[in-house]
C-alpha cells in the first residue's frame, strides 16, 4: 500500500502538478480534489490507474506537502508565489485580489489534518501578501496615470 501511494504521488506530480504554476496553483488544485461535505479526495484518472483508496491517500499526502512547502516560505516568497498564481489565472489581478480579500477562498485550501496554528499562520501570511500586492498595484496604476492635469491638456500636434 505504501509503495503504491508513493507511486501514485509520483504519477500525480509528473502528469499534473508539474504543469501547475507554483505552490499556490498546486495547493488550490489539490484542495479542489476534496469533497467539501466528506473531506474525501477523489481523482478519477488516478483512481483508475491505482485504486480509489490509494489515489485518495496520494492526494492527501501531496496536499499536505504543498501546504507545508508554502508555510515554510518567508513572507517575501509567499508574495512571489501569490503573484505567480495571479499571473497564471485568466481573472483580472485587481478583481482576484478583491475577491480573495472579501471571500478568503484560501482558507478552504488548508489540509484537514493541519495544526490550527499552522492554518492560522498560513491565512495570516496570505492576508499580508494580498495587502502588499494590492498596494503595489495601486502604486503602479498611480505611476501610469498622468502626473499633472497640465500634461494631459497639452494639445496634440
Amino acid at each position, binding site marked *: 500500500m505504501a509503495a503504491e501511494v508513493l507511486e501514485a504521488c509520483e504519477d500525480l506530480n509528473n502528469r499534473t502538478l508539474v504543469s501547475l504554476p507554483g505552490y499556490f496553483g498546486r495547493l488550490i488544485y489539490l484542495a479542489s480534489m476534496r469533497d467539501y461535505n466528506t473531506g474525501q479526495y477523489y481523482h478519477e484518472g488516478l483512481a483508475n490507474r491505482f485504486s480509489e483508496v490509494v489515489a485518495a491517500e496520494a492526494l492527501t499526502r501531496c496536499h499536505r506537502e504543498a501546504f507545508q512547502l508554502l*508555510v*515554510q516560505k*518567508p513572507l517575501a516568497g509567499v508574495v512571489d508565489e501569490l503573484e505567480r498564481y495571479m499571473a497564471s489565472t485568466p481573472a483580472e489581478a485587481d478583481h482576484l485580489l478583491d475577491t480573495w480579500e472579501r471571500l478568503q477562498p484560501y482558507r478552504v485550501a488548508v489540509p484537514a489534518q493541519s*495544526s490550527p496554528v499552522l492554518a*492560522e*499562520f498560513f491565512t495570516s501570511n496570505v492576508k499580508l501578501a494580498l495587502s*502588499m500586492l494590492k498596494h503595489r498595484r495601486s*502604486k503602479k496604476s498611480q505611476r501610469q496615470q498622468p502626473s499633472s492635469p497640465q500634461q494631459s491638456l497639452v494639445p496634440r500636434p
Partner: protein
Amino acid sequence: MTSTILFLTVGSCLLVVLFLFLHASSPSSKINGRSQAQEVLNTLQAELLPNWFVDRLFSKEDREFASSQEAPGILQLFDSERKSVALSWLRQTRDYVAQLMDFHVRLSRQRPDLSPATEVKLTFEYVQFQLLCKVLAAMIRMLGPVRVRAVAEHAADMATHLGEVSEKALASLDEVVPVKVAPN
C-alpha cells in the same frame, strides 16, 4: 534575609501543592499497555510544532520585508497578525505541555522505580515553563514577537525537553509489565 526565607518557604509549599495536585488529579482516559502509552505520547508529540515554525513565526527577516514595502498600514498589520499567531502558538504549546504532564503523572503511578527527586525536578521545570509562558505572553503583547525570539526559542526547547523526559520514562518501563493506569 527574613523575606528570602519566607519566599523560599512559600515557593516550596507551592511546589508541594502542585506536585500533590498533579498526582491527585483524575486522568481523562485509561492507558492499557505500553504500546497504547506510546501511541498516546506520539499523538501528543505530533501536536508540538517543529523548530522551523518558531524560526518563521518570530522571523526578523519577514518584518524587514514588511517594513520595506513602504505602504501605510502594512507594518502595523504585520505586527498585529504575527502577535495573534504567536499567542496562539504559545497557547497550543502550553496545552501540549499540560497534557504531557498529565500523561507523565498517569504513567508515573505504574512505575515501581519512581524517583521522588526526579519527579520534584520535573514539577519544578513544569512550574518554570508555566511562568515562562506567562512572561512570554506579556512580552509578545508589549514588544511584538520579533523582539522576543530568543525567549520563544527557549520556551520551545523547554517543551521539547519535557516531551523527552516523558519519552525516557516510557522507555524505562518494563515491556513485560503492562501499563495500566486506572482513573481515580
